[in-house]
């Protein structure tokens, strides 16, 4: 069973390699191969989930721990617990859906084969990041996704603006790489004082042996790298362009899983490894998170492009996640992890919908899409409306719980954090939720209502129903039964926080 985790991580990469080496593969066959390989990975992940001991989700399971670079103590250490498992499932699911959507509507520029190769590599990178338990190994996987994602945006992006694609992709890449290089320095700083890269061992030490100043510097360096990835306001500036230019599948994976690597790193590495430094930086993280919620919402109100709007909404949602993490409470962190998964599902769905609209109308600008979508394409508009209200946090759908728990955590922050500050953040974030509702409802009014105008659009297609329905279903399921995720994450969070917050 243990080997299965490695197989799941390796299968997409091997599939990519096979596809890259195979002579003369047509576009359709390449997409089918992608579906097959990623479905294999999903099946493996589901088997992992079934074999996972849910009663003991705070413990690392399916652990592999072998020596890799012995002279500097780097190990090939993999394993999953209740924090990783939902993200692993989310990644595998979204990947399959992306490949299914490629079957019918591949981006017009570039060959599908190259795109499938890159997306499969990306999947391996993300799965590896969520199961690596060694800092260097984590870093390797963290960086593995960059080149494929850069390529996907640069070559398969908006067919009307190739130089713009390249620029957006390069800004994304350079910002992330700078951040992660700084993060690596932080890792080495930790290593210099502890002599180990092992995340589990470091979490157990809880920062013992690292002087307070070093902890602060290391927490700053690691946090900076993760904050660029998440992205945290004001380091989010790469995000809107990258999303606006990326092809639909690129946007879905970028928002759905790549951003989660940042927030996952915050929970898995940042919090337990350098707790003293974290405690000093947490209020700033919370403040940036609260600002991000409001900033994201205000930026959304000003957008005229649907894809950019969804991108900015991600900044806001990630603000909630960061706020939850910064409270250093189990409630807040559980909320952050839940919001992670919910955001992956809902924003993935939104980007699928918007991508579908963009493919039909040739643009994602409100002016080009026209009005009265409820009447022109009632089913498609229905899904958009569903995704929007889920995203604005309607109780009963998945978007609600994460934000609620984050704010709950902020109401009574852990450790020696200043309560007044966090209550303020909570109030600011609360105001942000109202603005969030405002722009999503505004979006629906501008797009859905009014006299029908604009280009002729087809209604939802069968393949779209297939791709989108799992996301819709899971959004409802997690909305009604949040315990499915929280039951997994909570014991693991308790372990990370040293038995309670």
């Amino acid at each position, binding site marked *: 069973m243990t080997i299965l985790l490695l197989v799941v991580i390796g299968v997409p990469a091997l599939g990519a390699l096979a596809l890259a080496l195979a002579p003369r593969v047509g576009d359709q066959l390449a997409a089918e191969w992608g579906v097959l390989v990623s479905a294999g990975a999903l099946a493996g992940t589901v088997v992992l989930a079934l074999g996972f001991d849910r009663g003991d989700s705070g413990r690392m399971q399916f652990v592999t721990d072998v020596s*890799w*670079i*012995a*002279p*500097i103590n780097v190990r090939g250490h993999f394993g999953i617990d209740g924090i990783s498992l939902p993200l692993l499932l989310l990644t595998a699911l979204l990947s399959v859906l992306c490949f299914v959507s490629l079957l019918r509507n591949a981006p017009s520029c*570039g*060959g599908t084969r*190259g795109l499938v190769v890159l997306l499969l590599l990306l999947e391996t*990178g993300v799965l590896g990041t969520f199961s690596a338990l060694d800092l*260097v190994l984590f*870093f*390797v*996987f963290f*960086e*593995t996704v*960059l*080149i494929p994602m*850069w*390529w996907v945006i*640069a*070559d398969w992006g908006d067919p009307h603006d190739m130089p713009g694609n390249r620029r957006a992709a*390069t800004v994304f*890449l*350079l910002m992330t*790489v*700078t951040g992660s*290089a*700084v993060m*690596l*320095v932080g890792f*080495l*700083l930790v*290593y*210099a004082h502890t002599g180990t890269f092992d995340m589990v061992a470091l979490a157990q030490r809880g920062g013992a042996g690292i002087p307070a100043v070093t902890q602060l*510097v290391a927490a700053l360096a690691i946090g900076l790298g993760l904050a660029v990835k998440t992205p945290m306001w004001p380091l989010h500036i790469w995000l809107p362009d990258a999303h606006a230019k990326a092809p639909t599948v690129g946007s879905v994976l970028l928002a759905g899983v790549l951003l989660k690597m940042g927030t996952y790193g915050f929970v898995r590495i940042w919090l337990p490894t350098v707790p003293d430094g974290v405690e000093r930086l947490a209020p700033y993280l919370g403040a940036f998170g609260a600002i991000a919620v409001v900033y994201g919402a205000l930026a959304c109100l000003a957008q005229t492009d649907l894809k950019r709007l969804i991108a900015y909404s991600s900044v806001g949602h990630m603000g909630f996640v960061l706020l939850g993490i910064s409270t250093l409470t189990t409630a807040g962190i559980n909320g952050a992890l839940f919001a992670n998964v919910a955001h992956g599902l809902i924003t993935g769905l939104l980007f699928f919908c918007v991508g579908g609209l963009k493919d039909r109308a040739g643009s994602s600008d409100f002016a080009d899409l026209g009005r009265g979508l409820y009447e022109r394409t009632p089913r498609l508009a229905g899904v958009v409306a569903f995704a929007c209200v889920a995203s604005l946090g309607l109780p009963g759908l998945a978007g609600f719980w994460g934000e609620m728990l984050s704010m709950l955590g902020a109401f009574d922050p852990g450790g020696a954090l200043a309560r007044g500050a966090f209550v303020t953040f909570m109030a600011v974030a609360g105001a942000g939720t109202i603005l969030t509702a405002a722009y999503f409802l505004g979006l629906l009014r501008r797009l859905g209502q009014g006299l029908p105008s604009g280009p002729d659009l087809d209604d939802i297609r069968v393949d779209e129903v297939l791709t989108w329905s799992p996301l819709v279903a899971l959004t409802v399921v997690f909305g009604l039964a949040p315990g499915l995720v929280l039951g997994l994450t909570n014991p693991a969070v308790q372990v990370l926080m040293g038995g309670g917050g």
Partner: protein
Amino acid sequence: MTELPVAGTLQSIDWAAISVPVTLAVGAVVVLLADAFLGPRRLAGTLTIVTAIVGAGFALGLANDLQGAGSESSRATFCVPAGLERLTSCSYAVDSATIAVWTVTLLGVLVVALLMLGRDDLTPPGEFHFLMLCSASGAATIAGARDLVTLVVALELVSLPAFAMVGLRRDNKPAAEAALKFFLISVVSTAVMLFGISLLYGITGSVYLDQIAVSLNESSVKAVVGVGVVLTLVGLGFKVAAVPFHVWVPDTYVGASVPVAAYLSVVSKAAGLVGLIQVLRYGLWPYADTWGPILAVVAALTMTVGNVAALRQRDPVRLLAWSSVAQAGYMLAPLAVLSGSSVLESRDAFVATLAYLLIYSIVNLSAFAVVSVVGGGRRDTLDSYAGLSRREPVAAAALAFALLCLAGLPPGVVGLFAKLVVFQAIVNSGTGWLALVMAANVAIGLAYYLRWLVMVFWPSADVEPTNLPNGAGVAITTTLTLAVVFSVWPAGILSILSA
């Protein structure tokens, strides 16, 4: 296991310790004679390859010996017994750094010889291979030099044939100009270095590095010593192509044929770097507080200037030239953060530099090998790499992997590993600003490596297969294989250095 000869008038020579430089020198003579008297034009190249392989065999044997003797052991020879000098000092010693630079040198010779196979029309093969083996023999010697005279002689032995190699090109006028520029700058740097060495000798009364260290500890004329130290390092800085002594690099690389540029960027740089390591580690360590900060600034400047200049290049050789300047900055960084009396114990810093050198050499040779095939001697730009993945998949894979390794991004794990050990050395020393400069540089470097990488996979109407000569094919496959193997097993690089 340091074998000291008995005191007497005759020195006993440990032939095993000097086997690699001697092999290369003997090979050079054999190549020259064979080319003059035996005939077939391919013979010179073949003999050079055989020489490199024989040398590798000797190096391997010696490495095994050292490994058996423990991690900090060395084999010394040409020693002067304590009766004549204050200490028993040796001119020549083989340690793990020596083995590493031998590896780089032999690999460089092998790859360049393979690339030159079948290019006899451009350069007279006998002369070229003779010069290259002479120069390589110098590089192998400097790797073990423990006195300043041996060091300077070996360094000149590296450089003098290299001038001729740059100029020895029938198809191209700028080559002569490049050779002249290279020659003038190099001669000036040697002169500066000799001046520095004369100051050090004047103050310490010895040319042996270990005795210089002892005398420097006692010396009272700090200012003069400081000048001597800095001037000595300037000379080595030219060879490493550290900023501000890098101006010869782009023009010389572009003027020379591509294999020669590969040779300069790897073997010549390795020679300068190992010379620097020997001088700092065994001779000038008492003055680490003087040269440390200077070297740190030089390292930071070298990586930044190299990377920023490379951003604007469209000519692949020129781009690789600037990139090699930048990479030298990363190699200098661990040396720069050494301080005070801890130098002798700071094995990790030297290991980081040498590990980086080994990895850089493999992937840089790989990139140059592909350029020598695709560029084919004519002026080309990055655009001529469009569609390479279809025309020549193996070369494309090798170039792509080499660029990723140079950039330090997965899947080029070995490149990432190289950056990791360097970062580690810097972080351990607590020089935060240098770590941040390097972090920024890693991002800048990425920008231009990726621009090239994209061209390799760019769709192109031109699907005419490039003619991949056998020699170049072997060179490309070998370096690619090494890079991939060490990406999976990065510890292998360190096992070379633990000899």
